């Protein structure tokens, strides 16, 4: 099983090996190359929606994310420790 879903509530899975763009994995078309241990969206996620891993929120999507896309610092924002959001 190349994609690990840690908790049933999760909307991201963890790649258990490097996965090439175009691979079909557990019902999902992988839309880009994803490195080992990086996250992949298990479903479409809208901008502002929580990203759930380990059954808990780990941030929010900063843009719309499609199922099968990599989820990392380019499209997920932290909610905590955001001193840059102080007015």
């Amino acid at each position, binding site marked *: 099983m190349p994609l*690990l879903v*840690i908790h049933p509530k999760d909307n991201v899975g*963890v790649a*258990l090996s490097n996965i090439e763009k175009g691979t079909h994995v557990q019902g999902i078309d992988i839309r880009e190359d994803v*490195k*080992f*241990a*990086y*996250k992949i969206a298990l479903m479409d996620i809208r901008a502002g929606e929580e990203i759930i*891993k*380990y059954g*808990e*929120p*780990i*941030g929010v999507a900063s843009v719309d994310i499609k199922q099968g896309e990599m*989820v*990392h*610092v380019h499209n*997920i*924002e*932290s*909610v*905590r*420790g*955001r*001193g*840059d*959001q*102080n007015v």
Partner: protein
Amino acid sequence: MFKFKGYLRQDGTIGIRNFVVAVPASVCASPLVSKLANQVEGIVGMTHKNGCCQIGHDFERTNRALTRLCTHPNVGGVVFVALGCEGTPSEQIVEAIRTSGRPVRFIDIQKEGGSIAALVKAKAAAEALRKVVEEVTETREAEVEDLVVGLECGGSDATSGLASNPSIGWVTDELVKHGAKVILSETTELIGAEHVITKNVRDAEVKRKILEAVTRVEKDCMAQGVDIRGSQPTPGNIEGGLSTIEEKSMGCAYKSGSSPFIDYLDYGEAVRKPGLSFMDTPGQDVESMTGMAAGGATVFLFSTGRGSPVGFPIVPTIKITGNEKTFLRMRDDIDIDASGVFRGEAIHEIGEKIYELIERVCQGTVTKSEANDYHEVSIYKNALTL
């Protein structure tokens, strides 16, 4: 359940090593300690950059850390070196070492007539001290319940929360079951996971203090006016697949296994109770190890995805990685490969390997970082230097 020959200290604590250490009162005495440790066989140096022009809680914290490191269960004797004019209360610390039943020698660089004369004196004192320590140190048969195990994460990547940390969590549960003391620290790495990791805490006061510590760290971080990301998670964490501090913290939390926190400790405060305690430290590896060592940790379990070679001079540090590439690339620095989790190995199988290595380390086997002498000390300092 295993037994080992432990070094018995006057206060009843048990060491798994009998180090003779050289410790500077301040940054200005550090170079001499460095030379002493390099030039005299069997002397372990604990250099640092604190000890002068500090103030308030910061000053007290440094003094407590120095005192407690000098009277640590793994330490049998001390050469304490002062410049002579620094803020650190050297006489008090030397007296505390003496009262703890440990042979101690004190060198004041200015009184000795400078660094060269002081080094000559220090070398003679260190060599004499080593012999005395061997003669006077008592031992007794010890067990798992005599251990104080510190848990550390450094250079995490996305494998940490899936392999190395859960394996450590299994060991935590075993250690707690057998009556050992275990310390988890790194307050920053509770941000985003604090409610999950304190869910089973029964003592309301302990829970309150932990949550307050997390709130405080986050507030201090926000006051910097920047996004925490890049500092925490670090660039290496990010390259390793961790995207946010919340994600990192959730992964880090696995080190606690299913054990609830039964006590809260300030930085460097002596551990009190069997079971899992939380100590307020930064997430930075060396500062957190220094705090837990000052708290009395006698062995460290150090989870590292990216590969950190750094151990602590007086606490044998077992390095565990869940990243197969890291293990193969940095074999000389890593003790345990936990990556088998990704190939179907059960968490408890890796946990058992770690537990078995703890036993061997207690019986004298050196860890990779011990063998490499790759150590650092850094006492957390958060007030201004004046």
